[in-house]
């Protein structure tokens, strides 16, 4: 008996929503009954989807029919539903279907095929052309959609090197004459947070996953297509839609592909979560809110008939870049320092994703919350500062701001600020206290811009001390809290900032 039984029930229900997702390559012996039941539910997705659509479009007729059984019987023939026969679980295409798809999609050489799958009568292939990934769905020799992503293959490859993705939302209409791009109204805060969240949930780079989903139109019908790269440790990828349906992706050669009927339908075909199975288990992460698509938009009849190589596509992600001003004024963001300079206490270690820092990669929840805005953090560029009291700080640069996070030995605290503040004030903090030879010492540490081979720390006694700076980083201990710190800002102007108190930055 618990004291708050309703809370227990809510937590279990939340856990089901959060984590209960089928694992494509799971061992049957480890599958729970509930898990298998969900797989069964997913297999029936098309019928439920088209039943729902039919109910919406033909509400009047439904009222006349006055019996749900009639509706189901009509739909079960599948004669009127687009994408009839589509399945949520993919299978390997036959050799003849694959060959037909390669031909229909523009004579794709077999060597350029990244992944291929069959969903009922549909065959989909992902391939490279002109250094861009493409995703093409065909039925027989008829091309349903043929999508290219906006970014080159190398941009996707960089995801596997640890880049955190940021949303860049564009919509491209069909037809060469009418081709245009425009930015859609896309809530971006969630994706930044989500990216950080999903990255932090995978301690190993090989478990990284990039999620990119396009909304596409094929004549009057819409579909959602997902394509991206997956680390070598990713065994399965499953998309969870808003209505609870689950779409299993095909993972091959470091890429994954999936598609499903419908697009950006609130409560329906919108993918809300992605579940990734790795060697260390399964993790489910929320996906960003989908882009809004103008429902009145129709594919122009002329210039973009099915079979042509054009469609509406909406790439959702691109890798972030660290603000140029940061690398311009902080050598630590330009140079590639040695993997580990020293492990001695109170020495400075600056690492770039060495095996040590990658293995310990965590961005605590407190930091994620504060980085929910679009700071454009690039976790792959995080630098370590070992402060000598068992605490390791991570300095995570981004396109708009910089965050610090205590990742080892600290209390998980973190804070973020805009790039301008970092350029002006650096990041100087009280790193806690150290107990040296029976005496408690105040630890000061942080980062200052280039042009500061040393900083000057002013003590309450009126004395001052020069502290060396290495790779923009410094750390030193004092008998008590210093009064202030003098250094040069990124413009070369001398700045004197008060020394921070405990837990102040």
């Amino acid at each position, binding site marked *: 008996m618990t004291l*708050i039984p309703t*809370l227990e029930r809510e937590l279990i229900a939340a856990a089901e929503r959060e984590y209960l997702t089928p694992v494509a390559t799971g061992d049957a012996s480890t599958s729970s009954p509930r898990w298998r039941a969900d797989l069964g539910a997913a297999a029936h997705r098309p019928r439920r989807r088209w039943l729902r659509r039919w109910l919406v479009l033909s509400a009047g007729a439904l009222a006349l029919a006055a019996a749900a059984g009639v509706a189901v019987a009509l739909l079960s023939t599948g004669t009127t539903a687009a994408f009839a026969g589509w399945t949520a679980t993919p299978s390997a295409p036959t050799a003849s279907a694959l060959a037909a798809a390669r031909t229909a999609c523009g004579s794709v050489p077999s060597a350029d095929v990244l992944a291929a799958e069959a969903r009922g009568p549909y065959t989909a292939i992902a391939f490279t052309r002109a250094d861009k990934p493409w995703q093409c769905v065909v039925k027989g020799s008829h091309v349903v959609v043929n999508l290219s992503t906006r970014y080159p293959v190398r941009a996707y490859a960089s995801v596997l090197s640890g880049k955190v993705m940021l949303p860049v939302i564009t919509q491209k209409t069909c037809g060469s004459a009418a081709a245009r791009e425009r930015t859609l109204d896309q809530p971006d805060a969630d994706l930044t947070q989500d990216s950080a969240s999903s990255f932090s949930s995978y301690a190993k780079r090989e478990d990284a996953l990039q999620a990119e989903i396009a909304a596409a139109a094929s004549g009057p019908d819409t579909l959602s297509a997902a394509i991206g790269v997956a680390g070598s440790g990713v065994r399965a990828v499953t998309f969870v839609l808003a209505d609870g349906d689950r779409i299993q992706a095909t993972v091959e050669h470091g890429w994954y592909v999936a598609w499903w009927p419908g697009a950006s339908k609130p409560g329906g075909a919108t993918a809300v979560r992605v579940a990734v199975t790795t060697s260390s288990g399964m993790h489910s992460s929320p996906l960003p809110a989908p882009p809004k698509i103008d429902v009145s938009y129709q594919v122009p009849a002329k210039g973009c008939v099915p079979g042509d190589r054009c469609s509406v596509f909406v790439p959702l992600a691109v890798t972030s870049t660290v603000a140029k001003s940061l690398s311009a004024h902080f050598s630590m963001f330009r140079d590639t320092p040695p993997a580990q300079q020293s492990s001695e206490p109170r020495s400075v270690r600056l690492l770039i994703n060495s095996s040590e820092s990658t293995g310990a990669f*965590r961005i605590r929840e407190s930091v994620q919350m504060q980085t929910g805005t679009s700071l454009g953090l690039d976790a792959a560029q995080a630098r370590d500062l070992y402060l000598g009291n068992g605490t390791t700080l991570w300095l995570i640069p981004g396109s708009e701001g910089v965050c610090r996070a205590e990742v080892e030995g600290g209390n998980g605290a973190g804070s973020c600020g805009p790039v301008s503040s970092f350029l002006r004030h650096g990041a100087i903090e009280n790193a806690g206290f150290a107990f040296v030879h029976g005496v408690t010492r105040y630890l000061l540490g942080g980062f200052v811009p280039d042009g500061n081979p040393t900083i000057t720390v002013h003590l309450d006694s009126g004395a001052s001390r020069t502290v060396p700076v290495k790779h923009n980083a410094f750390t030193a201990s004092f008998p008590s809290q210093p009064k202030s710190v003098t250094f040069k800002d990124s413009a070369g102007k001398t700045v004197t900032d008060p020394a921070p108190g405990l837990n102040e930055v």
Partner: protein
Amino acid sequence: MGFPGRPQTDAKLALKTLTEPAAFGELYRRHEQTVLAYFLHWSATPDVAADLTAETFAAALASIGGYDQARGELRAWLFGIARHMLARSLERGRVEDIARRRLGMATIYVDDETIERIETLASLDGAVLGPLDELSEPIREAVSGRVLEEREYRELAASLACSESLVRQRVKRGLARLRERLEKVQ
């Protein structure tokens, strides 16, 4: 859903939560009272303590995939979240519901019966923790941090700005005094 047979470790239940959500229910049952007692100790208000407890477990659930046994016991990890929740609430003057909203959890209404149960826990908590308030502040902080929150000595030493050995001594002295006090009460 129960888990018959040999009790599973917290770490195993945490991992199991990813595939069997009921496992988190077991974790909740194991740690509910301790977390509630912790918040009661600081807030002394049953509904606020329940609110903080709910947010703490929701945050734990949301990040359970990131729990790393090598970094410490789950209970300590949970109290890390609890401390964070408490600090944020004190700082902002309200209990947040970020984790619960993120998970789509319904609002937990604490009825009179639940309040009564929590108040009972508070009274039990008072019997155990009451004497804690009679300890001097440095010793109380050390005992509370080590025993209730299960923090590492190293971490405690850093946050209390003293040496590990001094923290150990304070914890030892504090526990001895608590034992004496409880023996007198009994």
